[in-house]
């Protein structure tokens, strides 16, 4: 079983082999083991559901792979709703000829990421498409979580509320750009791909009022800030000096003409919290990057030299297949 063949997707003997030798071996749990067409999740309260697809290129990148990315991506979508991720279902669309060893690596990452996130993979499906009809492997999944936060998110935002992020911006996109090797560059950059639920749980537990949470993915910080301004019908003032970044990311952007504010992350979130909670957020290691204002309805960057400019929604095809 060194390569995936069309027979592995045929529903017969080879499919069963694939399921028991790989999927059940690493991901097995009472929900999955029964191999029924569906699964009863029991009683859930204040359920949150999300779904996401993953087509990243390359499949293996510094700091992760498509499997880890899928689990983190789904968990993060639930986390920013104020929910604890509990169950995930996964679909694997595999291209004929895909190395079984690579599939095993991906499933192992899924298993270890799921374990540390405390979630169960409760249902799954495998399809094999003919060679040339897929990018190696695509994964899509649905996540189910239970609300742990008292309020629904997003909440009501007002002037003076503060904007925080949990780490350097753009590492994921930048690491992928280098990993694709189109530019024959090398760097020590790693994707920031991680499950942000623990950090978010901590913030939700300790602060009096969290008003807005969003994971910073496609479109980067620039897109999320604009979504926030639109949602809250307010302006945002961001201090360029305060936005955390890695030097390598900025150099890469300068070289290739990207704005690092538009680069995607996979383990970063933006939080809007009440100004009274500032100390708590700072003590958790979050970085304050700006504040909500009623002076205008745009996202305005206070630049390093003391000037001002607008941060606009990114447009066009910035970087395809980053997640």
């Amino acid at each position, binding site marked *: 079983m060194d390569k995936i063949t069309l027979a592995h997707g045929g529903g017969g003997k080879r499919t069963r082999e694939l399921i028991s030798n790989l999927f059940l071996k690493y991901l097995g749990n009472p929900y999955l083991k029964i191999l029924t067409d569906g699964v009863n999740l029991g009683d859930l309260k204040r359920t949150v559901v999300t779904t996401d697809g993953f087509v990243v290129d390359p499949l293996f990148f510094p700091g992760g792979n498509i499997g880890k990315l899928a689990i983190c991506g789904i968990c993060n979508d639930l986390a920013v709703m104020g929910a604890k991720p509990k169950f995930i279902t996964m679909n694997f669309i595999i291209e004929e000829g895909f190395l079984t060893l690579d599939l095993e690596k991906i499933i192992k990452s899924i298993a270890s990421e799921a374990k540390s996130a405390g979630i169960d993979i409760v249902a799954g499906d495998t399809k094999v498409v003919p060679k040339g009809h897929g990018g190696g492997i695509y994964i899509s999944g649905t996540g189910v979580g239970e609300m742990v936060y008292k309020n629904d998110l997003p909440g009501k935002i007002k002037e003076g509320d503060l904007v925080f992020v949990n780490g350097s911006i753009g590492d994921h996109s930048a690491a992928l750009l280098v990993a694709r090797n*189109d530019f024959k560059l090398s760097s020590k950059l790693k994707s920031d791909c991680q499950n942000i639920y623990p950090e978010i749980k901590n913030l939700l537990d300790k602060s009096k009022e969290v008003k807005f949470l969003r994971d910073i993915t496609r479109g980067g910080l620039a897109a999320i800030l604009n979504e926030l301004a639109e949602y809250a019908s307010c302006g945002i003032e961001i201090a360029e000096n305060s936005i955390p970044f890695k030097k390598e990311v900025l150099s890469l952007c300068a070289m290739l003409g990207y704005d690092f504010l538009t680069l995607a992350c996979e383990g970063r979130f933006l939080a809007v919290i009440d100004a009274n909670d500032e100390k708590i957020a700072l003590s958790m290691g979050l970085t304050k990057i700006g504040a909500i204002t009623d002076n205008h309805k745009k996202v305005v960057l206070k*630049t*390093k030299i*003391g000037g001002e400019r607008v941060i606009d929604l990114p447009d*066009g095809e910035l970087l395809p297949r980053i997640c």
Partner: protein
Amino acid sequence: MTTKNLKKGSDPCKGRTLTMKIMEVCGSHTAVIVKSGLASLLPPNIELISGPGCPVCVTAQGDIDNILEIAQKDDVLVVAFGDMLKVPGTRISLKKIRAERGNVEIVYSPLDVINIAESNSEKTVLYFAVGFETTVGATAALIKEAKRKKIRNLKIYSTHKLIMPAMKALLDGESEIDGFILPGHVSTVTGYGYFEDIAKIYKKPAVVAGFWPENVLESVEEIQTLVKRGKAEVKSVYKVVLKSVNMEWQKLVKEFFVVENAAWRGFGKIPKSGLDINDKYKEFDAKLFFNIKDVKRTDKPGCSCGEVIKGMKKPAECSLFGKACVPDNPFGPCMVSEEGSCSVWYKYSYNSKIKGQKSK
């Protein structure tokens, strides 16, 4: 000068108000000036105007239409820089052709074109070469490598341009420019002595700047000082640039190109301002291969890009700006490129965006 000296409305002329129009002729400078917020800090008597510094913007509509026509031929694969894809032709764009026919590829380096030509040997690969003095070397390297590898299916459509003749054309016209911020990249390649005529013939100061806001500001200060003293000189505050004219670069241009009259958007034909492929390498010349006789003078009706490029109109003064012409759906090329002044102003300008909102 450090940024500490910068305060909104402060006047480095110290008491003496001298209105000054300074033109930057490099799209990267335009981007730095707006993105860093420098534009929002300058006193009102200093006006920075963007000139013909964005290669995508200055490319004549006729050249773009020629490329688009070739791109719709069977068995042609077009290779271009990303920005070129979005530039609207009279009827269609490369982006639309790519979506319909799938025969357009983006490259970051001209040398990547070699691989594309080799792996598509059954097709004619058309490389759309754009850019100023800075990027000429990379196209020369492509021609050299293609010759060495005896690549027969590569054709290069050169719209390479020289910035110096365009600056002269501006000064020969009715311009009110008091001085120039000279392009750091071009000067690095040519040596800034290349711009000596701006001072000698046209009696205007010109200062080379690098690409960080403090350095651009230094060049503005230097230009002001020169204007105040009535001195026309070519200088540099970008320390890496040498004055002496780079003979290697000139040799390279001579070997691979011939200087010809060229059509520019907004200007029409400017004498001795474009680089066509030298006869020695004519097997790569797309204009010969596809029998392109001329570039039609067809700037799009209603589009002000020509005037914007010449510094006669500010982006916001165009009636289409932000309405019928936005980065997502550009009407003219200045709204396309990250270096195009309309796109830069539309995306980043505080004033053009905040207008109409509650003021402080």
